[in-house]
């Protein structure tokens, strides 16, 4: 074959010298490297006792957000469901009634909001699509359960604790402490 470019460089492939031909030498050389690793710092961490710190933008399980007064932010516009490439999100909208202003921030809210965590691919497009800062991906990951049905998360699983009524649980969920 003629060369197509001027940048090609042949890889080194010279035959073995007599020292390299000795099996024992190879075993000795390999063992030397292995033994040197005994004295090195352990790179593994003991999950789940120890956990590594994630980046602030880590994409874990979803959380439905509340505002500082504890009202749900979601207005059921459906952008997250449209943006979802895995079609994992479904929702039903309802209108806010008189006297519910302390529960919902906007005039329309999600009466039902479900994410199928078995379909979800954690791409983060729902978070990006949300125009109300109502859904974000937290640092929680590896959910486990016994049935498939329990992986369809409803509002009771997704909503963040109320910052007014349960400030400690809220702070924990936001990862503030």
């Amino acid at each position, binding site marked *: 074959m003629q060369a197509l470019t001027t940048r090609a460089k*042949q*890889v080194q*492939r010279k035959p073995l010298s007599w020292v*390299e031909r000795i099996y024992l030498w190879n075993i000795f050389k390999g063992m030397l490297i292995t033994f040197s690793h005994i004295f090195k710092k352990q790179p593994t961490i003991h999950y789940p006792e120890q956990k590594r710190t994630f980046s602030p933008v880590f994409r874990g399980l979803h959380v439905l957000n509340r505002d500082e007064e504890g009202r749900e932010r979601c207005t059921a516009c459906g952008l997250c469901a449209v943006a979802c490439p895995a079609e994992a999100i479904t929702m039903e909208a309802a209108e806010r009634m008189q006297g519910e202003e302390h529960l919902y921030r906007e005039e329309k809210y999600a009466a039902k909001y479900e994410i199928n965590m078995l379909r979800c691919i954690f791409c983060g497009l729902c978070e990006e699509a949300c125009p109300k800062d109502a859904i974000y991906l937290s640092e929680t990951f590896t959910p486990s359960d016994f049935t498939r049905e329990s992986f369809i998360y409803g509002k009771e699983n997704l909503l963040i604790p109320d910052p007014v009524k349960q400030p400690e649980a809220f702070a924990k969920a936001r990862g503030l402490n």
Partner: protein
Amino acid sequence: MQEHQHHIKLPEGSIEKQTTTLNLGPTHPATHGVFQNILELDGERIVSAEQTVGYIHRAFEKLAERRPLYQITTLTDRLNYCSSPINNMGWHMTCEKLLKIETPKRVDYLRIIIMELARISDHLICNSIVGVDSGAYTGFLYVMQYRELIYEIYEEICGSRLTTNIGRIGGFERNFNAVAFEKLEKFLREYPKVLKEFDNLFVRNRIFMDRLQGTGAISAERALNYGFTGPNLRASGVDYDVRVHNPYCSYGDFDFIIPVGKTGDNYDKFLVRDEEMWQSLSIIEQAYRKVQDFKGADAEVFHADVPEYYLPEKKDVYTKMEALIWHFKIIMGETDIPKGEVYFSVEGANGELGFYLISDGGRTPYRLHFRRPCFVYYQAYEEVTKGSMLSDAIITMSSMNLIAGEMDA
């Protein structure tokens, strides 16, 4: 010959079946993926092999016909999952070619850093798995920490490690933060030593060389006839590299060499990949220096100005009506894609990864085809393994870097 054996290619002169049929796969621990091979064995020697494709076919090309452009990125994640950023960026650059978007230089350089990191992580996996399959497990474990570090760099930028969904049409979703650059510096500082140690363990090791030399060889002519690209073709001696022949993403600004082999056997493939990792490292260093040279406002640029496809900033979406309208328009995929037909290819970690995109002026692609290098390599699997031992065929499979996700799309 019995009736049910008519599909088996018997060695010439045999009067009855004297060979063993072995189903290697579709779920076999040694194949690292969903591959099926119906092998015909004479003792331990392979007489013939029949490959089956399609066990994890997920109809990505069809799915893409019903998705707006930005959602297709998540499909490309799952092609070659060892180096998904290259697939993501290849897809974004395909869209940019169709939409005629010019990206700023800083975006190009940042993309090159990420793509070359992905190439290193892919070659690292491939080469160390060749070691594992030939009985040397330790090297694999030593280099995994540094693949982990590469994944942490991805995580700082996009939030995920394996299926990255990194970048957007026109650039990145967010600027690289200080931690990302810190980790990149750490990688550039520590990785050469680790790769050196990895070379010490493998390159001149007699046991390793005996296993790899002369197995899985393919001549340059046959490789070209099959349509080989990437390290597998370069190992046969053809210096074809998309980064040099058709520079994309400002690869022309960088200085690097193309390592080539001679015989195309597994040892040459190993050496070519090894040398490519060193070259990638030097490209990352060059790109990082170039990124640091940007000063003032230029140093904050991380995406091109494309309001039709790049989402407005979140704080504008919360407060300004115009930004909110753009936001809805982009997310709902309500922008018509210009009519056209483009082919764009990047040098993926294991070959030329091409995207053939046809748009008929609608909101989704009319047709999208991925040119997946693994699909091509797998066709040659019978030819390169015929006559070799079964255990060598396993090494050949890993050293061709066959990845089921990419083969089947």
